[in-house]
């Protein structure tokens, strides 16, 4: 009896996942535990293992397809087995519109169509053009789709149309559709125009040829993963929409360094986790934030949502890119609990097995570049949060104690705030209190 494998639902908020790789092809033998395919949500990547043994009889989606959760991905069974009873939506609750056609629909027909878009400098729908440029183009009759945009946001401006009108499009009418702006052709047509025949003989600039001959690859091209696309979008909107202000401060880390050394020495005996400096900062920040709720907040659509508990986002560097899992209710947790939980979240993030539900819901974020020797930086806020704390490295500083110069280990903190809703002084007060708490960490623990 053949078995269908569905696209799993990862977390309650995930509607669909992208197939990033098929590890088995149609016709391959499959054993229990073999990885069938890899798929990704906005935030994480997962491997789907086979739970049955047999032959991969049919696959319904290709790499790159965005597949709604719970749809059939493939069918595993014995060779030659009839799988006509399976359709890709067999495991899905039947939708009214698909019900009538369900019987007649073949697997091939119901594959989502994938459009191939022609490569062109501009296309008429997405073309951005200034009114002056448009007016000049209308007057001179040049085809603005072939203008090279040099204005802001890839906008075609007047000078681009002037250039196009002057140079002309050196391509014959018939060759236009296949012509790629900026590509190098060996033009053989009248007046040096690129002809239809030339299109298939695109040439590489000479300075590149020498290298390619030795097998040198000029560059590699890779489509962004879903995770990376989301990071890109989030980071850009964060910077473009907020008024971000970063302030830097340092504190005497002698106290927490001593404390950490003490915990480490007794960890085994007391059953404590390997508590790191970062855990200590997370702990201290969580405790400090509740008296500075403007920084433990979400701001969106002119509404400030101040949280009475701290869900601490912790930025983790993973092979797939930056991930920010959340330590929920961090303000109520012990230092040991925080340490254990951060370690677990980091491990899951790195292996890609983290539930997407744990990757959202943060009210404040801590990011740490200290172990990479960074002395100060400008962290970018994870919207709709209103602040992010960057933890920097240790530097040796000197201070005067009782008329004597004394060297000590100083640690930097970089706090970025959304200045639209958080003023500088209150933010500085939070930073000051946090530094004070970290300098007197044992006192804080006693609270």
């Amino acid at each position, binding site marked *: 009896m053949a078995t269908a494998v569905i696209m799993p639902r990862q977390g309650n908020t995930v509607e669909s996942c992208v197939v990033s790789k098929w590890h088995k092809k149609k016709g391959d033998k499959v054993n229990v535990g073999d990885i069938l395919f890899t798929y990704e949500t906005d935030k994480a990547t997962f491997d789907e293992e086979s739970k049955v043994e047999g032959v991969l009889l049919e696959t319904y989606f290709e790499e790159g397809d965005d597949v709604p959760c719970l749809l059939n991905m493939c069918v595993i069974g014995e060779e030659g087995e009839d799988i006509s009873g399976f359709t890709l939506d067999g495991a899905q609750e039947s939708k009214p519109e698909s019900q009538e056609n369900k019987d007649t629909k073949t697997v091939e027909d119901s594959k989502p169509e994938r459009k191939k878009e022609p490569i062109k400098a501009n296309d008429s729908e997405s073309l951005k053009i200034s009114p002056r440029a448009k007016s000049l183009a209308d007057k001179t009759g040049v085809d603005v789709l072939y203008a090279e945009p040099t204005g802001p946001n890839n906008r075609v401006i007047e000078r681009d149309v002037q250039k196009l009108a002057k140079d002309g499009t050196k391509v*014959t*009418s*018939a*060759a236009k*559709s*296949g012509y790629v702006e900026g590509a190098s052709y060996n033009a*053989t*047509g*009248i007046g*040096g*125009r690129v*002809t*239809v025949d030339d299109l298939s003989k695109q040439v590489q600039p000479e300075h590149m040829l020498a290298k390619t001959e030795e097998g040198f690859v000029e560059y590699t091209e890779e489509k962004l993963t879903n995770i990376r696309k989301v990071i890109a979008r989030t980071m850009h909107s964060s910077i473009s929409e907020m008024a971000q202000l970063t302030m830097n401060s340092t504190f005497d880390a002698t106290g927490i360094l001593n404390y950490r050394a003490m915990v480490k020495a007794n960890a085994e005996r007391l059953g404590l986790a390997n508590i790191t400096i970062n855990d200590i900062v997370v702990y201290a920040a969580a405790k400090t934030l509740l008296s500075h709720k403007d920084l433990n907040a979400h701001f969106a659509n002119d509404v400030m949502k101040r949280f009475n508990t701290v869900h601490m986002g912790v930025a983790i560097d993973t092979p797939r890119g930056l991930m920010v899992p959340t330590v929920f209710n961090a303000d109520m947790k012990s230092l040991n609990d925080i340490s254990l939980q951060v370690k677990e979240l980091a491990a899951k993030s790195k292996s890609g097995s983290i539930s997407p539900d744990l990757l959202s819901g943060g009210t404040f974020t801590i990011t740490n570049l200290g172990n990479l020797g960074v002395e100060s930086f400008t962290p970018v806020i994870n919207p709709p949060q209103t602040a992010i704390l960057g933890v920097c490295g240790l530097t040796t500083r000197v201070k005067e104690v009782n008329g004597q110069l004394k060297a000590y280990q100083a640690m930097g903190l970089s706090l970025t705030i959304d200045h639209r809703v958080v003023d500088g002084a209150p933010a500085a007060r939070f930073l000051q209190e946090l530094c004070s708490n970290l300098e007197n960490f044992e006192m804080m623990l006693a609270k």
Partner: protein
Amino acid sequence: MKYDLIVIGGGPAGYLASERAAAKGLNVLLFEKRNLGGVCLNEGCVPSKALLYSAKIYDYTKHSEQYGIKVTESSIDQQVVIKRKNKVVKTLVTGVKAALKHHNVTVVEKTAKIEKKSSEGYVVSADNEKYLANRLLICAGSVPIMPPIPGLHEGYEKGFVLTNREVLDLTEIPENLVIVGGGVIGLEMASYYNSVGSTVTVVEMLDKIGGPIDDEISELLRKEYEKKGVIFNLGSKVTSFTENSVIFEKDGKSYEILADKTLVSIGRRPATKDLGLENIGVETDKRGAIITDSFGRTNVAEVYAAGDINGISMLAHTAYREAEVCVNNMTGKKDIMRYNAIPSVIYTNPEVASVGETEATAKQKNMNFESVKLSMKFSGRYVAENEGGNGICKVLREKDTNRLIGVSLIGNYASELIYGAAMMIETQMTVEDIKELVFPHPTVCEIIREALFAF
């Protein structure tokens, strides 16, 4: 004295290249062993047009009644026709000479031979005199193919067998003319001698006339001439010439046709013999044609070739363009020879003209195309001027790019309008583009526009 350029051959390629190069400041020496203007001007394109025009006027007098004109008597005076032809040729040759003189081209009317490449440059000799130049342009043209058929050479010696040269100078109209080879030259001469009263028989090896022209047009043309009394023997191979007849084989049987004169026009071959090409190592192919690249360059540095000698197209207008490509590249202007939009014309009555692909060549090239055939009667002027005319126009469109790739038509004025189609093809205009053009009305060329709207 050292020249910048020595041009060997004063036909269309040679005289034009000399003019163009001299205009660009080069010091040019031109060798011509026979007549300036070459075959085209002296014994080809131009004199045949003079003859054919006389025939056309004569035809008008004979067929004027259906247009409401009564001509009671008309006759042709072959001697006057030839005299007028000679005058036309003389006028044009004089023009060429004047143009060369105007550009300070040194003309030496002698047979030239390439001797060697010295440290000074290329050495060319003529009548034991040596000439030196930095560059060579070889455009020595072509000669008629005279295959080793029994009786052919003897017949040629005795004046029974003619080539394009002699056939244009016949002062008496032969009663029976056999034409071996139904290509452009053969058909134009068949047309002329048919008009002026000869009984013309065409013997062609292929099963169609007109060489590479569209199959349907070829058939229409043949039927048109069959109506006028020309006899066609297709798929026929000449086996020998006697003193007064031509013997050929068709479907395994042997036939003999009595003739007063025989024109042999089965093709031309590049005239590369005795040029001394081997002295500087210029590469030729197995037909003897000089191998050139798309810039007109041979395998030897600074040695160019243009015209029939490269065996590619063998048309005077191709030679003009090739000559210009050579001169441009010599003088540092990059220029590329393209052969995809070279028009060709047969000056029969009706005329046949074509440019670009025919259905046969497009199929052969695996092009994704469609064609439209339209009766010439869709042109108002054609109907007004051609009683009983049944010409057609064929237009080919490449589907992938929607560009025009070929036009063929049979009907008068085809020769004058085909350049328009050539421009459309050369510039790779799309059918949509061409539909936006305005054609004068009423003209025969409107047929192209009409045909395109059928796509």
